[in-house]
């Protein structure tokens, strides 16, 4: 059977027996997705009281290549952050076990498999989520407020990225990609001229958006993918979920295509978040939009260097989407927003 043929099945079964109470074995092991920096496996631990749904998040082949994804934190750090976030009331998948050397599975951790949906198109359109949708923006604000209260003294080592650091990081990447984008130059210039002082630096999730939120008919159930968490401006998390690509066509619902900034900010402030600074939020929205644009350029570059994926090639052609978003932010045609 596939489990037997899979080289991780035997060590994973051993780990489950040791660390999941009552586990006698594992079932339904399957790879969910993969990328340069992670493998995600879904499996059930069989116990006398029933199957326990679990996820193994593991470095590809067991080891995370930090050279390739310079901003990704080690998986042990990710597990630690999830536990710290849980302590302050952020909904997360509880971490069951952090892999050790003797487990023989490389670096990674096992967490609960939280049921729900991450696909924006379903969350924004399916009847199942109709009642949840109007509540999501406020919930996101409340969750981010809690996330930003994690005590810094408890945090594992993380990179610090101020507004200026982030602008320069993406400017360097943009220059390396070596293709002229006058609109991106305009945005970089604006960001340099308008980089805010960051009065408070906190834990920042860094990728808080549709796709990384497990959502059920009752609302947000878990915040996933803590891979690029860092110390930064908390306003960055409030902006990233508002950039137009994450609205999936619902342009008048700036928060992830499901809600308003008013609800997001009200939830954030009511749950003890910092006072929302609209100028800083706009700065991060411009930077977030530009970041996605530079990432699209990176896809084009990877394609030209020999990765013949048609999908990657067409994502390269989506840089222009961020250009129209940037023009609407920086040189609006109507004078509004």
């Amino acid at each position, binding site marked *: 059977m596939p489990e037997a043929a899979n080289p991780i099945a035997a060590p994973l079964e051993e780990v489950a027996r040791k660390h999941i109470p009552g586990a006698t074995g594992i079932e339904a092991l399957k790879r969910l997705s993969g990328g340069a920096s992670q493998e995600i496996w879904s499996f059930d631990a069989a116990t006398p009281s029933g199957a326990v749904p679990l996820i193994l998040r593991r470095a590809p082949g067991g080891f995370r290549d930090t050279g390739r994804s310079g901003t990704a934190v080690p998986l042990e750090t990710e597990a630690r952050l999830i536990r710290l976030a849980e302590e302050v009331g952020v909904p997360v998948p509880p971490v069951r076990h952090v892999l050790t050397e003797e487990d023989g599975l490389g670096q990674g951790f096992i967490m609960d498999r939280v049921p729900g949906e991450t696909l924006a198109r379903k969350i924004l359109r399916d009847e199942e989520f109709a009642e949840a949708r109007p509540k999501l923006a406020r919930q996101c604000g409340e969750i981010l407020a809690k996330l930003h209260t994690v005590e810094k003294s408890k945090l594992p080592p993380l990179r610090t990225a101020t507004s200026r650091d982030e602008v320069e990081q993406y400017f360097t990447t943009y220059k390396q990609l070596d293709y*002229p984008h006058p609109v991106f*130059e*305009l945005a*970089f*210039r604006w960001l340099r001229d308008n980089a805010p002082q960051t009065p408070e630096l906190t834990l920042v999730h860094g990728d808080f958006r549709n796709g990384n939120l497990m959502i059920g008919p009752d609302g947000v159930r878990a915040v996933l993918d803590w891979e690029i968490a860092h110390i930064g401006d908390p306003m960055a998390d409030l902006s990233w979920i508002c950039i137009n690509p994450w609205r999936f066509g619902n342009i008048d619902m700036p928060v992830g295509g499901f809600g308003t900034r008013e609800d997001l900010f009200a939830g954030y402030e009511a749950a003890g978040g910092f006072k929302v600074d609209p100028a800083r939020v706009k700065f991060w929205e411009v930077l977030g939009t530009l970041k996605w644009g530079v990432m699209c350029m990176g896809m084009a570059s990877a394609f030209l260097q020999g990765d013949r994926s*048609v999908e990657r*090639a*067409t994502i390269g052609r989506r840089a222009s989407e961020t250009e129209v978003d940037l023009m609407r932010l*920086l*040189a609006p045609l109507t004078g509004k927003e």
Partner: protein
Amino acid sequence: MQDQPSAIDLIGAVSEFIRNHAMPQLKGHTAFHALVAANALDIVKRELEVGPAANGEELARLKSLLGKDGTLDALNRELCARIESGDMTLDTPGLRDHLWATTLTKLAIDQPKYSGYRRALEEKA
């Protein structure tokens, strides 16, 4: 002069074939990638339709803005350098209009259904 059907018509036919005949027979990831491939052909088709005239107009605007001759690539690089240095800003006569015209053309080719593009067209009207 090439014979009929034109490159635009050929690409349109292949795109329709993928979407209407091949895709329904495919499953999972392969079906998804077939759709992506059809979308890529649609970009090529629109570029063949719109690109030549639009590139000519862009080049004319760049020459007038920068006051010099050159290729599209060279003049775009020059424009980038001048924006980066702060030599040209949104207050520079012609720059805002040029960037909007160029951006809207790119979207007309790449993603004419994109929400930000459609909204910009409404705002422009």
